[in-house]
């Protein structure tokens, strides 16, 4: 795509694009986001800094989005729940290498909403494909001393549902899910969690990339810069994520 700008028809295309848009038209960015980050993204995009960009959000599991992008889905930005998939997209030429960024670091919490559910089931996201699951399994195996039996959820939100509905007595869930549930309902049960020290599990690095086929590179870069800005880091912390440089333990 970039090579196109070096040719005469590339310039023609560029002119066409420029003149087919009214001068002040908002640019539209289509962002593919891993489901666990969707509520946070929805909060972030209301920020006045992004008022000139019209943002469309598609949420699914990182695996599904990854396959969609490989098959030509019209996304401009991919915010994955892991680091592996953005790297794979770069390697296969579907994403821009220099756009790779760690936009958030996931935090785990051990949640036991009440003592009324008596079983030793511990809900975690499936470690075979979820980075949250891998970190959860690592933590459980090394630090949980009471007997437990894993039940594997499809993703980290689903692990939350297993506990929420009372089918599993406790679970390793995302801090962000608990915070978002508490914001919505003010129910005290969402506060009965223990935040797990981040040294005790492999870091849950959520990375994002700009898709090579994007037609809105400037807007996409602007959005990525916004995502990495210090003010965004503060919001992330409030919503239950850690930004790359910040340190929650202090």
């Amino acid at each position, binding site marked *: 795509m970039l090579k196109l700008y070096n040719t005469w028809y590339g310039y023609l295309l560029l002119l066409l694009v420029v003149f087919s848009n009214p001068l002040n038209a908002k640019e539209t960015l289509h962002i593919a986001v891993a489901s666990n980050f969707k509520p946070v993204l929805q909060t972030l995009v209301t920020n006045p800094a992004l008022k000139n960009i019209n943002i469309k959000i598609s949420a699914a599991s990182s695996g599904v989005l990854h396959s969609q992008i490989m098959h030509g889905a019209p996304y401009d930005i991919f915010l994955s729940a892991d680091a592996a998939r953005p790297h794979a997209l770069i390697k296969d030429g579907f994403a821009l290498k220099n756009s790779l960024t760690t936009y958030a670091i996931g935090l785990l919490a051990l949640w036991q909403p009440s003592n009324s559910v008596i*079983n030793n089931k511990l809900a975690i996201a*499936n470690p075979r494909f979820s980075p949250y699951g891998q970190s959860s399994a690592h933590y459980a195996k090394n630090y949980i001393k009471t007997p437990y039996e894993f*039940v594997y*959820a499809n993703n980290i939100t689903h692990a939350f549902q297993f506990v929420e*509905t009372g*089918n599993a007595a406790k679970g390793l869930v995302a801090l962000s899910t608990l915070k978002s549930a508490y914001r919505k309902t003010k129910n005290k049960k969402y506060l009965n969690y223990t935040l797990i020290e981040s040294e005790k599990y492999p870091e849950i690095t959520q990375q994002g990339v700009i898709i090579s086929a994007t037609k809105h590179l400037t807007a996409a870069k602007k959005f990525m810069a916004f995502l990495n800005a210090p003010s965004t880091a503060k919001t992330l912390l409030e919503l239950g994520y850690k930004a790359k440089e910040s340190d929650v333990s202090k």
Partner: protein
Amino acid sequence: MLASDVTALWLTIKLAFITAAILLIICIPLAWQLASFKGKLKPILEALIAMPLVLPPTLMGFYLLVLFSPTHAFGQFWFWLTGTQLAFSFQGVVIGSLFYSLPFVMQPLLAGFKQINTTYNQAAIALGISPFKRFMYLTLPLLKPSIGSAFALGFAHTLGEFGLVLMIGGNIQGETQVVSIALYDHVESLNYGAAHQLSLVLLAISFACLVLLFKFNKTVINGAANRA
């Protein structure tokens, strides 16, 4: 094929068989009653039975998860009855599958009952044969092809069950990890080779099932059109 995939395959076949068998036991008397039922509520009952056709399976799964919860009356009742928990267990998945495949067993049976020629039954009534005997010696034998296709459809449909088991299963090997879940696991972990293998086996089994169904039950599936 991986050992875990063989386990999943066997579990799926077991699940499909048990589900189809239980559904037959429930649906034969139910369809018998419903086929001759003339009340105003009939369309409502028929619609209720057909609901699983249109409801998203993950939605049914979510509400079953709520229902199975030890904090819910039904979950408590089950725990009191059996001492076990339904979510994340094979029994739980069987209950889910009963809902999921209900219309697929019910529809062929209903169609079958409606097609049975009423004159035989009237003759039997005139001869003073009891309703139970009429059912056992007249209706059931006439219904045989419908029972066959009801079983096969229920079996085949349960083989492909996914969203519901995903919600209530907890992905436990040998207990709730059916083929579709194992497949999803492979795809999500970018393990495409294993996924292709397992899909191929599932495809072959489902195809064989449907071939058998169409071979032995032409009358029921195309029945209405042919008899008219």
